């Protein structure tokens, strides 16, 4: 440990504020990744990513092999979903989704046949003979999404476009969220594969340099990655200060490269593509082995679970099954998917494990802070803690008083919802909750306005049409009257209705992209001038990966 610290100095956090919460990583950091046996029944949701849900591509009764596409990508911001094992499709129906709403979502249920037979794979260890666009296509077809937690389709991030030259691939091994150790374990156990994945990514985006950034509290991961990177001159492994939210994309980029991503812009705008280490590993499997994304490592931890562990799990088993594999739970006060700072609390253990599930934290009743909220005492602790340099206390008052215009002037849409403000708040106010509320209200208002605009345009179009018809009739009548040649008035070519419908569809797509980028590292508030496609991209991936 001391040895590598001498070799790799710890880069300090260059962002403002941040917090140092109790880590609780010791619960699982020494437990090697264990494979969960494939359960008999898997519930595979068709939406396990940001963007449009995949469309079911199988029918009830179909036999599928492991890796077969069971859901086709729908639209640009979408990826396919694959069968996690071989078996029979027994249902395509709504099933409880791993979402704080507790609602159900379209899900393909597969009964495993126990043979776990692969579909036909197309491994390409010689990936450098492929064009970058082909690799992006394969990565999309493999269903890759950011595995840091938010699940943004990876192929979009690997396509920064010609006007955004990328020189650095930043591999995010920050994992600054308490409890989570899945990235830590993966880096310790599979460093070579991760680096190969990083090389594939660098090749795809044309970057010359790869930097692996790991929080200083993971000395073994740092050693392992350092060891694996020997002989790769273009790969640099750096230790970064232990400070939440170091794993947040823009905060990490600033601390490692000194480049500050402008508000509303993408990392690629400063020449960086940022990927979670788990995503790099998945990219390696997808390209070199041709395997689609059907499993990931999840940290199962918290005081309420009997045997905290890191498990490699296929997508689809209910959380209850995963908990049972860890000795079950008792005295459960709260179940969190993800880490405790940006994860979501689930209503039950029934929903399945999905691509975004990097952690399942079973908190005891005692671990759930139950203190009542008091009024804000303007202590300023939140101002000090905010990694974006916002003034959270003012934003709270404005959001609470529904002053939505002014709260935007306080840069509401720059908030990354990391939770630092609420964590330090002595009055125990659910600050982030108020920001989410204000954001969704503002977005709803914008949608409403959009609807009204569409309706107005429709009415105008209708009026114009009626007017035109009237004029045409009039012209005909006049023509008849004059007994002229009988030439018809020419029809106008552009139908305003069509135009309005097209615009509306485009806007809807943008709104969906924004709304589902809910953790909103880069909310679209500041990018109104961007084209629709870029807007969808701004719903950044991996805000959960802190």
């Amino acid at each position: 440990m001391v040895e590598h610290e001498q070799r790799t100095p710890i880069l300090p956090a260059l962002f403002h504020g941040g917090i140092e919460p109790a880590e609780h990583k010791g619960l699982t950091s020494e437990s090697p990744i264990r494979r969960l046996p494939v359960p008999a029944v898997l519930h595979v949701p068709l939406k396990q990513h940001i963007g449009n849900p995949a469309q079911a591509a199988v029918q009830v009764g179909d036999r599928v092999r492991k890796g077969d596409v069971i859901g086709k990508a729908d639209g640009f911001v979408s990826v396919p979903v694959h069968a996690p094992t071989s078996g029979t499709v027994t249902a395509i129906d709504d099933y409880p989704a791993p979402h704080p709403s507790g609602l159900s979502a379209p899900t393909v249920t597969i009964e495993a046949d126990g043979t776990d037979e692969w579909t036909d794979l197309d491994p390409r260890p010689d990936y450098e003979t492929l064009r970058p666009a082909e690799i992006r296509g394969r990565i999309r077809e493999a269903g890759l999404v950011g595995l840091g937690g938010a699940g943004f389709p990876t192929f979009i991030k690997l396509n920064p476009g010609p006007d955004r030259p990328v020189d650095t691939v930043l591999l995010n091994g920050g994992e600054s969220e308490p409890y989570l150790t899945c990235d830590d374990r993966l880096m310790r156990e599979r460093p070579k594969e991760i680096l190969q994945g990083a090389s594939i990514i660098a090749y795809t985006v044309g970057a010359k340099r790869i930097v692996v950034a790991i929080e200083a509290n993971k000395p073994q991961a740092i050693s392992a990655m350092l060891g694996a990177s020997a002989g790769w001159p273009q790969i640099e492994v750096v230790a970064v200060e232990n400070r939440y939210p170091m794993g947040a994309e823009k905060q990490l980029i600033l601390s490692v490269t000194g480049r500050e991503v402008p508000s509303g812009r993408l990392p690629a705008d400063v020449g960086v593509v940022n990927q979670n280490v788990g995503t790099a590993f998945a990219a390696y499997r997808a390209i070199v082995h041709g395997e689609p994304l059907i499993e990931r490592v999840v940290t199962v931890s918290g005081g309420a679970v009997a045997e905290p562990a890191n498990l490699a799990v296929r997508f689809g088993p209910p959380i209850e099954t995963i908990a049972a594999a860890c000795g079950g739970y008792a005295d459960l006060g709260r179940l969190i998917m993800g880490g405790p700072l940006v994860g979501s609390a689930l209503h039950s253990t029934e929903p399945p494990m999905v691509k975004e599930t990097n952690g399942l934290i079973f908190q005891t009743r005692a671990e759930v802070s139950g203190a009542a909220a008091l009024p804000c005492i303007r202590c300023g602790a939140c101002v000090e803690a905010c990694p974006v340099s916002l003034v959270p206390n003012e934003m709270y008052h404005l959001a609470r008083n529904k002053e939505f215009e002014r709260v935007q002037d306080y840069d509401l849409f720059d908030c990354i919802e990391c939770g630092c403000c609420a964590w330090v708040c002595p009055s125990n106010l659910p600050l982030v909750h108020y920001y989410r509320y204000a954001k969704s209200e503002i977005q709803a208002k914008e949608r409403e306005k959009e609807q009204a605009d569409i309706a107005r345009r429709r009415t105008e179009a209708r009026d114009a049409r009626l007017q035109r018809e009237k004029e045409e009739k009039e012209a005909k009548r006049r023509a008849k009257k004059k007994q002229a040649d009988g030439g018809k008035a020419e029809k106008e070519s552009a139908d305003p209705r069509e135009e309005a419908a097209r615009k509306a569809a485009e806007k809807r797509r943008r709104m969906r992209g924004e709304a589902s980028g809910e953790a909103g590292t880069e909310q679209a508030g500041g990018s109104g001038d961007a084209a629709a496609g870029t807007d969808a991209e701004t719903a950044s991936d991996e805000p959960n990966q802190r």
Partner: protein
Amino acid sequence: MAQSSLFRPSLATPSSPHAHGSGGVGSVMGAVVIGLAPVTLFSVYLFGWPALFLLVVTLAAGLATEAVLLRLMGRPVRAHLLDGSAVVTCLLLALSLPASTPWWIAALGAVFGIGVGKQLYGGLGANPFNPAMIARVMLLISFPKELSTWPAVKPLFSGSALSFSEGLRVTFGGDKAPALPPDAASAATPLGHLKTELTLNRTVDEILAEGYSHTQAIFGTFSGSAGETSALLVLLGGLYLWWRGIIDWRIPGSMIAGTAAMALIFHVYDPSAFPGVAFHVFNGSLLLGAFFIATDMVTSPTTPRGQLIYGAGCGVLTYVIRTWGGYPEGVSFAVVLMNACVPLIDHYTRPRVFGKERAGGPPLGSQE
């Protein structure tokens, strides 16, 4: 997997974060009380029973007002009494009054501070002015004589100490209090003494040569309000708060620097009319104000730059009032005046937002 065995949370499942750092409002206020403890105990020692009675009266009146008003407004009485904010307000008020203040003046101050200064504005967190200082300013304007009559130092357990019954008469006897020995009645604070004597065309050096020493000011054996006595103990308490992370250096630092800078400039300009930096820093309630009063979270700016401006303003105004105002001490007025500027200061000192040219501004690198 039986449906019935599935986890159904008994607790609410709010949105993230699901972790919270330690400490609450109560622990913040508790730390302030601990920080004030040394100087409070010292003042009781220095002025004897009346100082203790003053504390009891102020606290009782203030807490009773808080409880009654919370109840009237239908708020949880217990939770808010336990948050400790009223205790801090009453403690600060008591520490800013002469130990000989009659009970009804102290009680009136506490009722006014908590009732009008805090609860009328909406209670905890909603008051624009420091309630303790609003109460003190009100009392100072309404009862200038009582508020500027400082008892002589009569330490407990010493020969000159007041007995329990004498103490009772000082606090509760009102005008009918039997005449105390003449020298027990009053003594001037160094600030007050200097102000009076300067009007008689004497120089600072002459005046301070008559029994003033910085050592005494630091250890606190001069007269004054309870919190004005020992600069050392106030500093100790302040450092405790800083160490606990309750306050940071900005407000105390800039407030002391503000007064010190003014004192330095004018002392250099004319040493015979303007005392030096040390005199201004160690006397009066500048240190108490800098560490415990101006740092009141509710009524001070939350932005780092704002805190510097606010603290410096408090410091400069304190000097201005001390030197050219009608009262020998100006901390309470200075703080209240600066409190009024806090929303403005906060608005114009928002930090630069990540990725933006400035708060509320365009993204970095964009043309406006």
